[in-house]
């Protein structure tokens, strides 16, 4: 490289790298260091305490002691992922496919996408509203169906609070998967489907044998992005339940915030942040690998 282009490179990259060093690299390292410091010495005790004495895992044991399920934050994050990933994948794929045969599909797509645009706090309030017993939609439906267990305000009972949040989050995030699947469907050559039709394949066979396998790369991205999004979820939990009642709907991001802002235990907050980041790195690593592979091709 000649001298001139080196100067150009410096001109282009130095300012953003300085900004990123101060606001991203330095604090990432700082958080890791802080998480290992306890009472002035270097140790693992923050992790130990966070994982045993506090809400994230203690609740695992408490499940057996209490009638209500105040599972731990870690468990809540896991349950959240286990429910929302299949829901987002299946609903997203089916809706995107069905939309091809529906009148006014771009309006439907635009509507479903709203969840991606609105501030999390507004979405949270909508979730709170949907599950409110006096004016909300879900409890009303269950009241008509004669299910008293579910015809109350879901978000204030430990048995239903987490479920309400999970259902609400699926409702919000579906726009992401439907949009990606719609674009994925557009890229499937129509000749493939036409020749299958000529061969006498049924709609269902086409969906199962052509559409689903062709959409596999999209499905991978949808799964990875959904996991990353769910792991970081904070604002709807804060607004709707605050992690309650009794810790029954708390999540890692919420625990981190509580340690930081309520009990001012910065080192423990850092430990939770590191745990959260490590979990996020699993799907992130996968995603980065896919992108880098695409780069080389």
């Amino acid at each position, binding site marked *: 490289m000649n001298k001139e282009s080196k100067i150009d490179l410096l001109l282009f990259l130095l300012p953003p790298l300085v900004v990123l060093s*101060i606001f991203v690299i330095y604090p990432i390292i700082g*958080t890791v260091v802080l998480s290992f410091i306890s009472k002035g010495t270097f140790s693992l005790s923050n992790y130990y305490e966070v994982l045993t004495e506090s809400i994230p895992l203690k609740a695992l044991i408490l499940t057996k002691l209490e009638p209500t399920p105040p599972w731990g934050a870690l468990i809540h994050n896991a349950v959240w992922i286990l429910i929302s990933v299949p829901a987002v994948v299946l609903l997203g794929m089916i809706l995107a496919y069905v939309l091809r*045969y*529906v009148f006014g599909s771009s309006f*439907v*797509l635009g509507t479903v996408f709203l969840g991606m645009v609105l501030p999390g706090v507004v979405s949270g*309030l909508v979730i709170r509203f949907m599950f409110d017993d006096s*004016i909300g939609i879900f409890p009303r439906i269950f009241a008509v169906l004669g299910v008293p267990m579910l015809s109350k305000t879901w978000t204030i009972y430990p048995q239903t609070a987490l479920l309400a949040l999970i259902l609400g989050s699926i409702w919000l995030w579906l726009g992401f998967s439907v949009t990606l699947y719609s674009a994925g469907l557009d890229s499937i050559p129509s000749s493939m489907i036409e020749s299958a039709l000529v061969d006498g394949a049924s709609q269902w066979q086409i969906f199962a044998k052509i559409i689903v396998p062709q959409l596999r*790369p999209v499905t991978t991205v949808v799964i990875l992005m959904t996991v990353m999004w769910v792991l*970081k979820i904070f604002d709807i939990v804060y607004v709707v339940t605050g992690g309650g009642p009794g810790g029954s709907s708390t999540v890692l991001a919420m625990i981190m915030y509580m340690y930081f802002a309520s009990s001012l235990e910065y080192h423990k907050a850092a430990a939770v942040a590191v745990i959260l980041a490590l979990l996020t790195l699993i799907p992130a690593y996968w995603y980065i690998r896919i992108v880098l592979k695409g780069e080389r091709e």
Partner: protein
Amino acid sequence: MSKARISLKGVLLNLIVWVFTILWLLPFIALLIMSVKPYTEVILHGWWSLGGNYSLKNYLEVLMNPSYNFLQGIENSLIISITSTVIPIFFAAMVAYSLTYLSFRYKTLLFTMILFFMSIPQQMVVIPLFNLYVKLGLNNTLTGLILLHSAWGIPWIAFFLRNYLKLIPLSFVEAARVDGASEMSIFLRILLPISIPALIAASAIQFTWVWGDFFYAMIFLPSPDLYVVTQRLALLKGEYHIDWGLLSAGAILAMIPPLAIYLAFKKYYVRGFVGWGLKG
């Protein structure tokens, strides 16, 4: 794929999807109705009843009552969202340009770092930055939040712009180089104008994200006189009693800017999202 034929199955399918769509919109319709009704009427007859006196009282209350200070929140949010959109776009464009058109040794490393920064959760950076901000006097300032949002925007916008630039043929960059144009002038005169659709998409998405941010605001703007709109809205909810009329008016006000941007740039916005998720 074939167009919908008129058949019983087709009609049924349309019906199901449209009922689903209306159910989807129902909570927002409910918010809209509740925001123009006195809450006592909502409680007595439900938000779905059409009778009663409609008024903008809830909106006036939210905006004018000094204890809610909503206007101040909107102002702060606008300042933060607009500046935190304009600043990172330029930095990110420079990174994207370097990654696409310049060759240098640690390019793959830089690109991997960008992808890594994109995936790190927000929680990972707040504690050291909070300490730093307290020392520098940036805590509880809009500037502090703007700097953070701007820095946080650089990685994903750079990745996003790079995906766009990759699709543009190199030939005229080479031609401009042969003509003796400097990299900076190629960047400013050719690449930025070509990237306008991608720049619009990135700006729209960044704006809605910053506008919707709650976590960073809660940590870096702890004092209520500087609250942004999302914090104001969370405050409106109250601890035990929820005044849905007031809250709906607040929620509607808080969603107008991102919704307006989304509707205005819908095409770019959605295409941008698809590119972010699929290309690479």
